[in-house]
């Protein structure tokens, strides 16, 4: 509940539920395709759990919980046998649905032993896992990746693409909301921006599009920044200025722990002047990581306030929160 202070201003309400109790549904990147080689198993950390990803002999990629239901060995230490993942401990094999397919020397298969499986999709060199809400049900089918994301990932012809990964100690809500907080750009990211005009926003289907005109410090270049969030984990930033040459940055953010995010930044550019365009990609991705570095000291000590006191100079923060809320789901 809010209280009134003696000045008549509303006292901001500190977030009551701990942030880790809230997860968001959506597609979460788990690995680059090239990191999961055929007949190999890889372990990734997502939402505080180990998840094993394997590429079967057919080339299909599957993902399961890491604990073998037999005697608790970590399947990340296992291997792939044909179309099955094999536990390192007793060599039990589980098929692409997570059902037990082979137990050495057993007369009958223990059918109750089943691995919890995750829905995956692989596109444009990236493997995504769908995070459901707890009440989604075992037969729930995830929606397809957002159309613009599919299109961006699929379109590789005549373009140059590079990936950069970074781990940042904060939460998904903080990172996402930061983009809508226009008032922090000059104080925190003053090395990049000379000025920034008020942001506008609009909803496009399930996504939110935030736009602003700014002048960057480099040659005082006028730049139009467009940031589109498709869900809490996926956004595309495009900048239009004389140097941008159709480039965009796709940020794929994945929670590893309660307060640890893995960023996979994909910069994509026209490949007309190869060396220059590759360099632009590098500058773009590095700039994004450096921007996050500037935010880190603030994120490390800030408290999330449910009802912040805002001024007319702030960006569309509450609108962004309202948009984000549609993805909230209780932890499975």
């Amino acid at each position, binding site marked *: 509940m809010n209280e009134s202070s003696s000045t008549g201003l509303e006292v901001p309400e500190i977030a009551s539920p701990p942030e880790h109790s809230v997860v968001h549904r959506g597609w979460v990147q788990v690995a680059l395709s090239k990191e999961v080689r055929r007949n190999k198993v890889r372990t990734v950390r997502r939402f505080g759990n180990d998840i094993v990803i394997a590429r079967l002999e057919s080339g299909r990629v599957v993902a399961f919980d890491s*604990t073998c239901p*037999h005697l608790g060995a970590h399947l990340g230490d296992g291997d792939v046998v044909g179309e099955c993942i094999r536990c*390192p*401990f007793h060599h*039990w094999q589980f098929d692409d649905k997570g059902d037990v397919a082979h137990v050495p020397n*057993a*007369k009958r298969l223990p059918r109750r032993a089943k691995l919890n499986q995750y829905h995956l999709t692989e596109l444009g060199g990236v493997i995504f896992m769908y995070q459901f809400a707890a009440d989604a049900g075992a037969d729930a089918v995830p929606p397809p990746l957002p159309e613009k994301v599919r299109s961006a990932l699929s379109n590789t012809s005549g373009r140059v693409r590079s990936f950069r990964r970074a781990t940042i100690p904060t939460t998904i809500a903080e990172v996402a909301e930061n983009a809508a907080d226009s008032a922090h750009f000059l104080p925190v990211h003053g090395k990049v921006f000379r000025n920034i005009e008020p942001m506008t926003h609009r909803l496009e289907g399930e996504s939110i599009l935030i736009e602003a005109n700014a002048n960057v410090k480099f040659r005082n270049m006028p730049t139009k920044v467009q940031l589109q969030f498709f869900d809490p984990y996926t956004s595309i930033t495009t900048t239009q200025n004389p140097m941008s040459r159709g480039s965009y940055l796709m940020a794929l953010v994945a929670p590893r722990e309660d307060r640890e995010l893995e960023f996979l930044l994909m910069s994509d550019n026209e490949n007309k002047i190869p060396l220059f365009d590759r360099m632009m990609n590098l500058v773009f991705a590095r700039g994004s990581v450096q921007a996050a570095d500037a935010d880190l000291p603030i994120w490390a000590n800030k408290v999330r306030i449910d009802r912040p006191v805002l001024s007319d100079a702030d960006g569309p923060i509450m609108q962004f929160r309202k948009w984000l809320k549609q993805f909230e789901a209780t932890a499975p």
Partner: protein
Amino acid sequence: MTDDAQFRGWVHCGTVDSIPHGADRRLSRFGIDVRVTSNDDGTFAGLFEDGRRLTKGVRVVGGVIFLYHAAPADTPGAEQPIHGELVKLLESHPIHRSSEEYVSPTSVISSSDNAVDVAHFPTVHRSAISSIGAVSWKAADDRFEITTDNRVRPFGMKAVFRYTSFDAYNSLANNEVGLTRTSWQLGLGAPRGDGTTDVLLITGHNTRTQLHARCADLTMRLGARRARREDNPIWKRQTYLPQPQLSDADGPILQFRKWRSRFAETIDATDLVARSTDTEKGQYA
């Protein structure tokens, strides 16, 4: 049940040889800092703060120092005696005896489960064991015993492996094959309190000659080291499952866990004495 500290019993604090006269040794047992002192008069003392959990100082049997881990509700001084066969072996004088200490990256309960988990022998330890044959087990009041007929490499020799658990922490292994036919190995596990275990292996050889004994000792030490190297990667990332999904190819894991539960804190200490002496047995083809 995932915590080693729930079990009563005698846990080792190393050997008397590991502490010079007048010196002391610091250890962690169940998360409690323990200082074992070697007095000038040849006696040993254990110093620790939690006198309820670790009771009555230390006891030395056959060169091994022990502490008793009790449950909070236990009456002081009501500890069970050290198992007679353990005492007998520790105080025996085989022609050759050796000991080795190391830290195992898993809990005592996981490593003792491992000994009755015969299905992992030909998978994890396939460098030594090619297949397993008949398995029989016996859960008596004072011990749990499992016998496995293994085929071992390189020639497919038949090897009878017998594992006897005396309590939650102390066990005996015999591997009746080749040079080690008359050898025995005590495995004494002591929980450090951080999920890892201080293990003391004591090996004795009742052979006719010193040369035979030393060769057998070397064989057993190398075998144990290799087994550790093979088990450790699994143990480091294994999760203890209270209700595992088992198959008909598994050993008597649940029977062993049930037998071990008699040492659990939730059972009244006096019940250990009053418990029925009925014996349960089982066999696998």
